[in-house]
């Protein structure tokens, strides 16, 4: 895609364990802030897409109280029950249809309402796995971690290293919930063991928050200051966890192939300047390196050890701290898009990486990263 759709504004709440405001008021806050950032009035929005989830909200039609706060009153509104990165896809397609010029995209949820990882069991097969009581988001991801580590020779120290890197990066991101400038492998390995090999600091903290992105057609975006162009998008769904290899993220690999073809990326490691990946657990970042083609298959651990993905490396990954710093269900992938756009615009403040022109952003939904979506974003 060449200058067809761009990000022209965005906003995030701080990510908190237990926000004072309701989800509706958090959405109102980011909607207004994103509109202001884009230099737009509510009246100029053509369509609004939100990402939220009925079972996380504890009632049906989780978007019904978001019509006004998301700017959708008497507008063309719809939602996805997936990550906000998919809401951005829906909005992107609406703009590409030619019928809509400007879209508001919102992702939100509040883990303080639904109780952390507990609703994750609703993603399990209802007739069998949910009845057994053995699997939940953490134990299933632990099975994924072990399968990957066994196949690719990755150590617990390497998982801890990813967590330490991201938590240290997060110390420079004022919106992060979990951050530790002094995080190191030892500290991560001495945090509580949840399900082996996953320790508390290797698991993303589920939290409260919202974020919003304004997408605009090329015609509108060209007149705005500093648009961040969507160069490509790719998405792919995999089978339920019992019917696929947990040792690799094959659907992310497939999504990347489609996205890179659209964006004209032939050698991701040299053409990309930065990546924001949605790693719900530390091992998923290593798996994503491989699936995104940043390194060869099976080389995720060694690639991490090379320092390439650290803040001062040639391809920093999760300069924001990633989802290990804050993982709002239905928003964390959209937040990765925002963070990548911030880096391209040079608006990332203390966690700014120098000279980011092209970046990749990843979102996921489903147990053990069943569904994956990536975007390649670029500046002028």
């Amino acid at each position, binding site marked *: 895609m060449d200058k067809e759709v761009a990000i022209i504004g965005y906003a995030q709440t701080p990510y908190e364990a*237990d926000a004072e405001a309701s989800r509706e008021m958090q959405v109102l806050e980011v909607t207004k802030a994103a509109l202001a950032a884009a230099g737009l009035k509510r009246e100029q929005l053509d369509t609004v897409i939100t990402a939220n989830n009925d079972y996380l909200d504890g009632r049906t039609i989780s978007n019904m109280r978001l019509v006004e706060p998301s700017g959708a009153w008497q507008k063309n509104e719809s939602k996805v029950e997936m990550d906000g990165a998919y809401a951005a896809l829906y909005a992107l397609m609406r703009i590409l249809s030619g019928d809509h010029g400007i879209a508001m995209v919102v992702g939100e949820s509040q883990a*303080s309402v639904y*109780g952390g*990882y*507990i609703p994750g069991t609703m993603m399990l097969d209802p*007739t*069998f*796995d949910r*009845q*057994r*009581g*053995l*699997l*939940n988001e*953490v*134990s299933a991801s*632990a*099975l*994924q*971690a*072990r*399968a990957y580590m*066994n196949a690719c020779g990755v150590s617990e120290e390497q998982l801890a290293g990813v967590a330490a890197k991201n938590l240290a990066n997060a110390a420079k991101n004022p919106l992060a919930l979990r951050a530790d400038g002094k995080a190191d492998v030892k500290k991560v390995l001495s945090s*509580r*063991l*949840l*399900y*082996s*090999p*996953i*320790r508390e600091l290797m698991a993303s903290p589920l939290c409260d928050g919202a974020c919003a992105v304004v997408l605009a057609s090329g015609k509108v975006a060209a007149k705005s200051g500093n648009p961040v162009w969507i160069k490509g998008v790719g998405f792919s769904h995999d*089978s339920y*966890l*019992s*019917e696929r290899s*947990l040792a690799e993220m094959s659907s992310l690999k497939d999504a990347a192939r489609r996205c890179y073809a659209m964006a004209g990326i032939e050698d991701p490691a040299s053409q990309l300047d930065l990546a924001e990946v949605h790693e719900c657990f530390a091992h998923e970042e290593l798996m994503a390196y491989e699936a995104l083609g940043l390194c060869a298959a099976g080389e995720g651990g060694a690639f991490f050890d090379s320092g390439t993905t650290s803040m001062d490396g040639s391809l920093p990954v999760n300069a924001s701290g990633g989802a290990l710093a804050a993982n709002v269900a239905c928003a964390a992938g959209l937040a990765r898009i925002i963070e990548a756009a911030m880096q391209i615009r040079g608006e990332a403040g203390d966690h700014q990486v120098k000279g980011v022109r092209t970046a990749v952003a990843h979102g996921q939904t489903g147990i053990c990263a069943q569904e994956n979506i990536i975007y390649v974003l670029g500046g002028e």
Partner: protein
Amino acid sequence: MEYKNETVSIEGGWPMEHWQWKFESLALIRKTLEALREKKLLGLKCPGCGLVYFMPKPYCRCLSIPDEWVEVKDTGTVTTYTFTGAWAYEGIADEGPAGTPLIIVGIVLDGTDTMTVCTLSDAKPEDVSVGMRIRLQWPENPEGKLEDLAYCVPL
């Protein structure tokens, strides 16, 4: 906001016969469960791609309808595993018997192509590895319930 920490426990199970879903899986799983009484394991084979599902599944990713019942073995291979740490997880047991970590294994039974999860007993966390061979531990008198498949032991 203390109310958030209150938990209400309600006694009871989740009897599947009370569900009124039009869900072909239920009929298939009932057949597999019924066979457990005779210590038989029934998988379902897809005519399109040959995949053998255990537990059975009414549709396949190749768009065929798995319809051939095949008896599969009660031995298999561990494809991945985890064990619990010192962590209380609401509503989910975090320990095995007598304070030992609960070892959860992903296994592929011989003659099947899909993973199922099971608790490994008679083993310590340091004994378990990917690739290790296991056998299902049948209860003395299987009752045709999911619980009959709860445990496996190293082979």
